[in-house]
């Protein structure tokens, strides 16, 4: 289908799904083949328990920790928080204080992230809802909800923050997995949605005794 030259994973490979071993192994393989991978807050919580996570997320982390090998846990802990490549910056939550795991909910939040870098385009996730923000040379903000399969030209002369949706737990009311493709030559980003077998994933979550809400939410994209 798409001929992509590089895969970039923005984090949170574990913490909500019922097959963490497979997921981490897959990420490790991809990284070995040249993919870029970042650390997300749930990946971090495996090694460093978090106090601010909600009860269901905490329960899932406890269970996940028990399922991962020492090597897998070390892999997650060693992942970088940010990666800079040419005029692109990749980070899990946002660029001004990555380890605070702040959500980019609106243009005001986006301003902080954009001001903290000189990269032409930053990519982040964390909020599980696709969005795009642009800051003009005069620091005026534009916010935008992208439409799948419609390429958006990232004009130079302004900075862009591309907020990715989630592959495994979308929260914008659409259960299909969300990701994007970026053409570095044409400077065009195109979002995509791919439906997957949500019921099978939910079944696995239930079968492993994980909190039921983590299964139910998949079907409604919350």
């Amino acid at each position, binding site marked *: 289908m798409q001929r992509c030259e590089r895969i970039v994973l923005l984090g949170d490979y574990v913490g909500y799904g019922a097959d963490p071993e497979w997921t981490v192994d897959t990420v490790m393989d991809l990284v070995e083949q040249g993919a870029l991978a970042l650390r997300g807050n749930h990946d971090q919580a495996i090694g460093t328990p978090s106090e601010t996570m909600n009860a269901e997320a905490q329960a899932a982390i406890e269970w996940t920790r028990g399922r991962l090998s020492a090597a897998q846990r070390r892999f997650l802990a060693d992942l970088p928080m940010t990666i800079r490549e040419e005029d692109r910056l990749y980070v899990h939550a946002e660029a001004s204080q990555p380890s605070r795991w702040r959500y980019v909910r609106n243009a005001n939040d986006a301003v902080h992230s954009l001001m903290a870098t000189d990269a032409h385009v930053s990519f982040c996730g964390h909020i599980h809802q696709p969005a795009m923000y642009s800051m003009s040379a005069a620091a005026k903000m534009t916010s935008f909800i992208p439409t799948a399969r419609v390429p*958006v030209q990232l*004009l*130079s002369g302004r900075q862009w923050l591309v907020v990715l949706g989630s592959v495994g737990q979308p929260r914008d009311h659409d259960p299909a997995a969300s990701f994007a493709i970026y053409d570095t030559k044409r400077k065009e980003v195109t979002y995509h949605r791919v439906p997957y077998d949500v019921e099978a994933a939910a079944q696995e979550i239930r079968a492993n005794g994980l909190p039921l809400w983590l299964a139910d939410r998949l079907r409604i994209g919350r």
Partner: protein
Amino acid sequence: MGEPPIRPGAVIDGFVIGECVHRGGMALLWNVTHPDIATPLLMKVPRVSEGEDPAAIVSFEMEQMILPRLSGPHVPACFGIGDFARQPYVVIERITGDTLYRRLNELPLGYAEAAAIIGQIAVALADLHRQNVIHHDIKPSSIMFRPTGEAVLIDFGLSHHNQLPDLLQEEFRLPYGTAPYMAPERLLGRRDDPRSDLFSLGVLAYFFTTGVRPFGETETLRGMRRRLWRDPYPPRKLRPDYPPWLQDLVLRCLEIEPVWRHPTAAQLAFDLGHPDQVKLTARAEKLERDPFSTVLRRRFNRGLTLEAPKSDVAAQLASSPIVAIAIDLDEASEELGQALRVSAERILATLPSARLACLNVLKLNRIALDRTLDEQGHNKHIDRLVRLRHWATPLKLGEDRLSVHVLEAVDPASAILEFATASQVDHILIGARQHSLTRNLLGSVSAKVAADATCSVTVVRPPRRTQGSG
């Protein structure tokens, strides 16, 4: 001091710069050529020196984003975009001729000519809206015409694309645009309603048919806000021979609330193409502006106006189609006529902004001389119009949603298709009989229409009968 990069003789990305043909407030236009492109070309370059209006840059960025996405005869083709990092530019097709601005010293125009011009612009707007773009700067200098007659919309610096970032959204406190033509909802910050373009077209129509601008030439925000509550003088007051149907259409475009204007540009184009079918409302009768009490009420009750939910251009268009239904008035088709009525009812019930055009084809013989009078001496054409109305009566449609047409033609399928194209029809309903020797020999009209139409076609059949045995 180095030479400016854009100057006659310079070559940028393969484009050879010719002479500068226009120096505008926000951009320069240069004639350019390219060895691989036969079409005459124009390069638009923003003025970005110190002290220039920052809106000029954002406006140029919008054109860079939107122009490459547009296609069709109603917009200039785009052949290249230059980066702001190196040299910003946009290369577009050069349309021969002048803009409508040239005609300002001939105003007011004759009614028929003005209606034809406005109709062409409405068709262009319909095409633009279908491509998810709202122009937001419709005025005489934004409109040109091809030698073949189509209107071409130019200058997309203030446009809004429904599926692309709107860089002008939060940009500046003043709504950007051309004050005399700006829709009232723009003053309230709304950029996502395609009917704003219809308001601007209404201003142009009023101006071109009366010689007077309906809202004056004020440039202040305060002056512009008056149109939120103060209606313009009815054109009939300025020109006593102004056709009521045209006044109705123009004043409908100028309605303060977008929901009272035509739902789509296509429906406005339809009305302009069928003046005898325009429903005459109180708007057509107006000879004076609204009374002061009404104006006061509008001004101070603005808070009571329900804030409409964010409209989706695509959803808007989808809910306001023009539906054409082809009826065979032959006696033997009573059952089919009923089936067509049922289908029409279903569509119209779910889409309150849809309108229905009922068609009947009066088949002319190629060889024999046609008589306009039948055996009883009745005019066939009028007779069929009456029977079409009779057919449509049970649908209980208001006059503004229903029109009837008798097409006289040798080939029914072609006549229906031509009507559909000329009238921007979105959906054709046509009946097909189950058994017909004639149909099998000559090919059915419905099959031809379904095969060649550029819009959706629904073929309706009478309800099934249980087949007898033996």
